Each structure stands twice: as C-alpha cells, then as structure tokens.
C-alpha cells in the first residue's frame, strides 16, 4: 500500500488512535476508536473530527480538507495496527450517514487488492453479511484478519 498516510498516535491498548489532517481548512485532529461491543471479540470502528474548541468529537463533520485518500489510508493502517494486537477480532464499520458509509466503501475499494489479500471482508445488507463485492451498496462492513 503505497498511498501517503498521516502519522498515527495511539494509547497503549491500541483501541484509540489520533492523527492530524492538514489541508486548506487548516489542521484537524481526527480520532479513531475501536469500540468493544456486546459481542465479545467484535469491535465497532468509529471515526470523527475532534472539535478544537470544545474537545468534543463530531462524527458528522465533513472537514473537506482535500485529503480524503490520505485519511482513508491512515484509517486502514490503524485497522492493520489494531489487528496486529487483536488478531482474532472482528471489526465492524458503518457510517453515521449514508455518505459516510459510502466513504468506507471507497476506502475498501481503493485498497481492495491489499485488503482482500489480508482480510476476510464482508458487506452488510440488513441482518445479513455476505462476502464483499465491489460496486455493491452496503449498510456496513465487517473484516477479520487472514493469517496464511
């Protein structure tokens, strides 16, 4: 994966990551959280901007900093780092809005060759999870690391 990425920082358990997006709209702190869910071993990937004034997280913000590809690459790398520490985990991701969910699909599609080689990928439609296919609209996504 040769796409440029932002530098990642994390807390010691590697469930929270932070990076800084730089672009025409200035410097924006972004947070990635892998949230433990009610299903043991399944984590929800949550992602958003940190409001520099309030410190609150806004997962609906569209920062439009002209660096979507770098942001996506950085999130994907955080996923690799998370799975390095939690190899048996599932990671689920779904956007706060349809547009955000489409952004996640863009990320998978953009890095599909690497991701398909390294992960079992699934797309969610309603209650069902099926192997991920490009060009299909999904409600969410699920991944598990491959070890060959």
């Amino acid at each position, binding site marked *: 994966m040769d796409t440029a990425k932002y530098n990642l*920082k994390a807390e010691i358990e590697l469930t*929270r990551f*932070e990076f800084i997006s730089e672009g025409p709209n200035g410097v924006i702190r972004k947070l990635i*959280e892998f949230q433990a869910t009610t299903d043991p*071993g399944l984590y929800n990937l949550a992602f958003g901007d940190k409001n520099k004034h309030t410190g609150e997280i806004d997962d609906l913000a569209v920062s439009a900093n002209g660096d979507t590809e770098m942001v996506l690459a950085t999130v994907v790398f955080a996923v690799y*780092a998370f*799975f390095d520490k939690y190899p048996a985990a599932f990671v*689920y991701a779904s956007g*706060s809005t349809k547009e955000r969910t489409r952004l996640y699909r863009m990320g998978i599609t953009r890095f599909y060759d690497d991701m398909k080689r390294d992960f079992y990928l699934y797309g969610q439609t309603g209650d069902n999870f099926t192997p991920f296919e490009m060009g299909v609209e999904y409600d969410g996504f699920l991944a598990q*690391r491959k070890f060959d």
Partner: protein
Amino acid sequence: MKTVQELNNRKAPIIAIDPALDKYRDKIMFPEKLEKANNMLKTAKLPPNRHSRLQGLTTSGSAEVEKQP
C-alpha cells in the same frame, strides 16, 4: 529484535504511543455509534469466526510501538 528488512516488510505501521491519549481509554468517544452497532448485533447473522481458537488472545507487543516522551 526485528531487522530493518522485517520492519520495512510489515503491514502494520509503527505507532507512536502517546500517554496523552490514555485519557480516552475509559471513555466512549462515539456513544451513538456504539449503541447503533450493539442494536445491529441483536439481530445480525454474523459470518463464522475463522479464528475462534485464538479468541480472547492478544499478541503481546507485536505492533511496533515507540513511546512519546
């Protein structure tokens, strides 16, 4: 100790551990998203866990980390 070659070939990035982020460890940053995910799980038909024998295990320190001063 990993060689430079091994480090260059890694998929996982080298992560800087920042103690300042510890304040987030016990805090849910996106509670609505977690609630949405948990609601989804109530009825979801998940695919089989291919690593069920590894469940609950973490690799100790396999992600290359460097501590921020």
